[in-house]
């Protein structure tokens, strides 16, 4: 396998995670449970969008066909998107959103922590910059998981239900294939099993503090990383790409 191609797969999948999750965040804008949360979510959305832009620009460079982040975001079709199924799940209620972000944030945080030592120069710099943002995301969502778990009966029940429902989408973060094996061998990405262990440790710690149950289910859905998505993604892309596709000759800057 070619190192460049393997990196392209990984960088695209990470860029797509950030892009698609930021899209879901923007759907909350103006509808959050409190003005302070609207502000916090916008912060998170802006961080994710910035990260998506850097990663997808880099993906365009690796690909070598002269495409930039906007081309990657606005001109690919569903099957070419490599984001996790987790991040495309609908927002649901605030507990659903928090549970989705929390699981992603823990993964994102530990992944970036390791990417600071990647053999890839871009990824090292990217991780160095993004880790500060993601540390805040993780703080924000873990605090909400704890507040909900140890808040009222209603909030406890809502967050536990949300966690149980979204749980099956968490396994995809740690699925291994020949690309991940190769990238790990090349020192580009960390060992996936070690990453998974850190993730489980942190999730257990937060759920424990929240008086919530760690789900027992072992079945895990997959497909996103291979471009096989849920029905949700098509609608999101239809929205996102509407103007660019309707007016192919137009420039929007």
């Amino acid at each position, binding site marked *: 396998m070619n190192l460049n191609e393997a990196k392209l797969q990984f960088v695209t999948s990470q860029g797509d995670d950030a892009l698609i999750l930021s899209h879901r965040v923007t759907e909350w804008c103006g509808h959050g449970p409190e003005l302070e949360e609207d*502000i916090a979510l*916008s912060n998170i*959305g802006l961080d994710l969008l910035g990260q998506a832009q850097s990663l997808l620009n880099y993906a365009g460079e690796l690909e070598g066909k002269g495409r930039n982040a906007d081309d990657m*975001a606005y001109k690919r079709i569903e099957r070419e998107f490599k984001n996790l199924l987790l991040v495309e799940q609908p927002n649901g209620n*605030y507990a659903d959103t928090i549970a989705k972000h929390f699981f992603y944030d823990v993964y994102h945080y530990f992944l970036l922590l390791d990417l600071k030592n990647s053999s890839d120069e871009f990824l090292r710099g990217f991780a160095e910059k993004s880790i500060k943002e993601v540390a805040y995301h993780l703080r924000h969502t873990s605090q909400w998981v*704890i507040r909900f778990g*140890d*808040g009222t009966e209603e909030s406890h029940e809502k967050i536990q239900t949300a966690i149980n429902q979204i749980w099956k989408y968490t396994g995809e973060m740690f699925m291994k294939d020949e690309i991940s094996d190769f990238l790990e061998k090349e020192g580009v990405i960390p060992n996936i099993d070690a990453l998974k262990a850190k993730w489980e440790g942190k999730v257990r710690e937060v759920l424990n503090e929240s008086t919530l149950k760690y789900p027992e289910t072992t079945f895990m859905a997959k497909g996103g990383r291979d471009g096989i998505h849920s029905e949700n993604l098509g609608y999101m892309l239809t929205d996102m790409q509407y103007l*660019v596709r309707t007016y192919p000759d137009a420039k*929007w800057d």
Partner: protein
Amino acid sequence: MEENQLLEKFQEKVDAEIKVEPKDWMPEKYRKTLIRQISQHAHSEVVGMLPEANWLTRAPSLRRKMILLAKIQDEAGHGLYLYSAAETLGVDRQELVEELLSGKAKYSSIFNYPTLTWADIGAVGWLVDGAAIMNQVMLTRTSYGPYSRAMVRICKEESFHQRQGFEIVATLAKGTPEQKEMAQDALNRWWWPSLMMFGPRDDNSPNTAQSMKWKIKRKTNDELREEFIDRTVQQAEAIGLTVPDKDLKWNEERGHYDHGEINWDEFYNVIQGNGPCNQERMKARRDAYDNGRWVREAAKAYAAKRAAKAA
């Protein structure tokens, strides 16, 4: 001291351009006027997030999407500072929000118009924020200290909003024929509602005189409207768009543009709840409030448990 002596002292202070601060004596009507005005302003920031958020998922580039999200985030922030400024007058945010949701308190009617195309996002920044700035710059010199200071902060961000809106429209105006048409169409639909933002004509604005005397306002509705027209017409010409007013004409003698009559029936209709999106905007705010109730309750319950443990 007698009420009228206090009133006299108050007026002297205002005339001497000394800011009124929360703990100072103030006439009840001054306090009430400010609470109404500041809270309306706060509500407008919050409701104003909705028509713009309508295009967030459809913004045509990552850069545009980031700018728009940052702008809407600023508006949420402005809402917060303004609620805080209102709270210095002895009301709380919860009360004010409930007045909005019950329909008792108003917000700027402009946000009852729909954003139908991407060009509307440009028009909202250029015209709506542009009109709001005229008022807000004036309010940086308003007599009530906390309001004036909140305005200084807000104005810095608003001028960025206005520029980004103008830049969107300018980009469209020099784009493909369809883009230019989209820009002109947005100007056609937003021009008159933007002029209405300054409120009724001076000869039909009963509260203006008292507000001017107390230096809450420093310019009349018509003066501000005129400044806005003078500035905006030139901007439209610079990017090759036409302001949709056949009576618009430069008046050499006055040094201002003369303009056609505003449709005041439409103005009062929208205020009374019959604008294109009044119901949708209020429903969105009520839903956010109702759906967020358990979240706020959880946060409160958790904080109480923590406090009990610490004690």
